[in-house]
């Protein structure tokens, strides 16, 4: 299956960061994914669409290691990561955000980011009394956290509690935490859900900016295709566990099969 590339952006289509090959996933007798193959080039923003129950979330769960496929492979940066534990996949640089934001609600924005810094000996509670055991890592983390806050446009909210943030800010906080944990490929589950159009555009602008400035690759599940399609490079459409269309967003959105899949439910 050849990718139909558009002459977009600087990312080269031959540098594939993530690839799934013929993923099959069944739940009992129900086939959730019937051989799905996608390719995500590095530094691209890829949109995954499809009506409810089409298998989008299942595919994400397979990629991030929460589910094991019956058949097929997940290749990340040339390595087979099929069936690897989720937290190891996270450490390899694939970070997902949740559809409903899961902030550390009683922590400040800055603390949320700092807590997302990759785990290490600086978090050992038995050595916590000795500041020397963690201060260096912490300084790096704080520097990085403020850089990310600036990139997200949230720098003024750094000392605010997560419980005081708006819906859109919480979505950005999720993205910020993923960046903090060293994400190379970020999988966002409905980043614009429940957010007003202006804010949704802001969120996608930030995503574009992060791609330009930090070279992050994005795989985005989003129902608000009208907004998302303006920002993405490539689109895959799923229906009943099968890939029914792919290509530049406008092409996919005008595809008869895609339109029918949404109308037919």
């Amino acid at each position, binding site marked *: 299956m050849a990718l139909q590339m558009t002459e977009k952006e600087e990312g080269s289509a031959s540098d594939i960061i993530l690839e799934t090959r013929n993923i099959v996933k069944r739940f009992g007798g129900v086939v959730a994914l019937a051989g799905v193959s996608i390719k995500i080039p590095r530094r691209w923003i890829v949109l995954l669409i499809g009506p409810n129950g089409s298998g989008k979330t299942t595919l994400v769960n397979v990629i991030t290691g929460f589910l094991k496929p019956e058949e097929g492979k997940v290749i990340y940066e040339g390595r087979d990561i099929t069936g690897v534990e989720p937290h190891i996949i996270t450490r390899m640089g694939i970070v997902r955000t949740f559809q409903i934001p899961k902030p550390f609600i*009683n922590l400040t924005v800055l603390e949320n980011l700092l807590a997302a810094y990759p785990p290490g000996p600086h978090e050992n509670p038995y050595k916590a009394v000795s500041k020397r055991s963690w201060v260096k890592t912490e300084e790096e983390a704080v520097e990085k956290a403020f850089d990310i806050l600036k990139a997200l446009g949230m720098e003024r909210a750094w000392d605010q509690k997560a419980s005081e943030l708006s819906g859109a800010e919480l979505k950005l906080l999720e993205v910020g935490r993923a960046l903090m944990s060293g994400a190379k490929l970020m999988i966002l589950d409905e980043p614009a859900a429940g957010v007003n159009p202006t804010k949704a555009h802001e969120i996608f602008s930030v995503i574009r900016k992060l791609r330009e400035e930090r070279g992050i690759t994005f795989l985005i599940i989003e129902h608000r295709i009208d907004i998302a399609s303006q920002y993405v490079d490539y689109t895959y459409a799923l229906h009943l566990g099968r890939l029914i269309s792919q290509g530049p967003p406008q092409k996919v959105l005008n595809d008869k099969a895609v339109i029918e899949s949404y109308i037919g439910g």
Partner: protein
Amino acid sequence: MMANFAVLAEQILSFIGIYYIVSIGLNLKAGHMGIPDFGHAMFFAMGGIVVGNIVAHIAAAVAAKSVPGVTVAGVIASNTKTLSIMNTKFFPYHPLLDIGLVIFALVLSLILGGILGWIASLPALRLRGEFLAILLLTVAEGLRVIFTYTKSLMGSTPTVGLSTPALFSWTHNSGLAATIFTIIVALIVYVYVERLHNSPAGRLFRAARDDEDAAKALGKNVVTIRRDAMIIGSALAGLAGAVYALNPFLGGGSVAAVSIFNRVWWTFWPWALIILGGMASNRGTGLATIIVGVSLIWPVRLYSFKVAQVLHASALGINPDQFANALEYAFIGLIILIVQAVLPRGIIPEYPSRTLPFEKYARGKVLPPKPKEE
């Protein structure tokens, strides 16, 4: 008059010190980590046993060589007699040994509390919320029963328990020395928990408490985080138990299963204090302990009988003894209900973990640098 006041002050300070240590241990588990430990008293009890049983045995082994009437077996077999001989004829004359034993007791109670906390953390990894609370409550009750009726642990009479070694008798003012000691330990514990709170590890406790799934998705090992909180919090409770047993104002010179495993004193009172102070708030717990210690525990525990007299309780057909009991229950109940209704975050709400002076970074990074003053 002055002397009376001094003793009163010592008693109050002792109460505040001990309740701070035991409550802050619970606060680490329940406030910072969100583990609803309803069996906190059992970790406290470990410290009491270290002093009443283990330290007494060690001291007896040393004393048996020089002091007539003291045998190692006598610590359990004729506890009151053996300890009263040691407390009058041995401990007052061996200050260095006494100090060594105090330090040993503190270290061992931390270790034993921590080990029991580690064991208790095993179910804590599989269960959540109220079910875990009920399980820990049940386990503490089971342990209480085991300790109550096992002669080699708590002596032959459950209600009397074991006399404790008077390890401050060499100072000739045990009460004052023990009070100072209690306050020093409490202050060290305060400094420790504040440093832990203001470290990446302390922040991680609170993060994993707020959202386990998010913490896991960020690659954190929630299992070890919960285990560590359980171990440290329980170790602090064990420490509190040892301090309790060493302080004559608190233990009254003895430890018994009925006192050191007391649910109301060492589980429910600490819960009330951390709710009043603010969950995950080390300073709030401190303030709550001081307020309650000065205004409630002191009159209730020590002078409720007089309060009943002043209020002419008996004229209303109320038994002054019963009234004393009632006061303590009423206070603890009212604190829990009123604070939860009016001030659910406590008197000093949870505050951020300040690992570094964040404002400095914020000024450099976020806001434009201040214009230079000419």
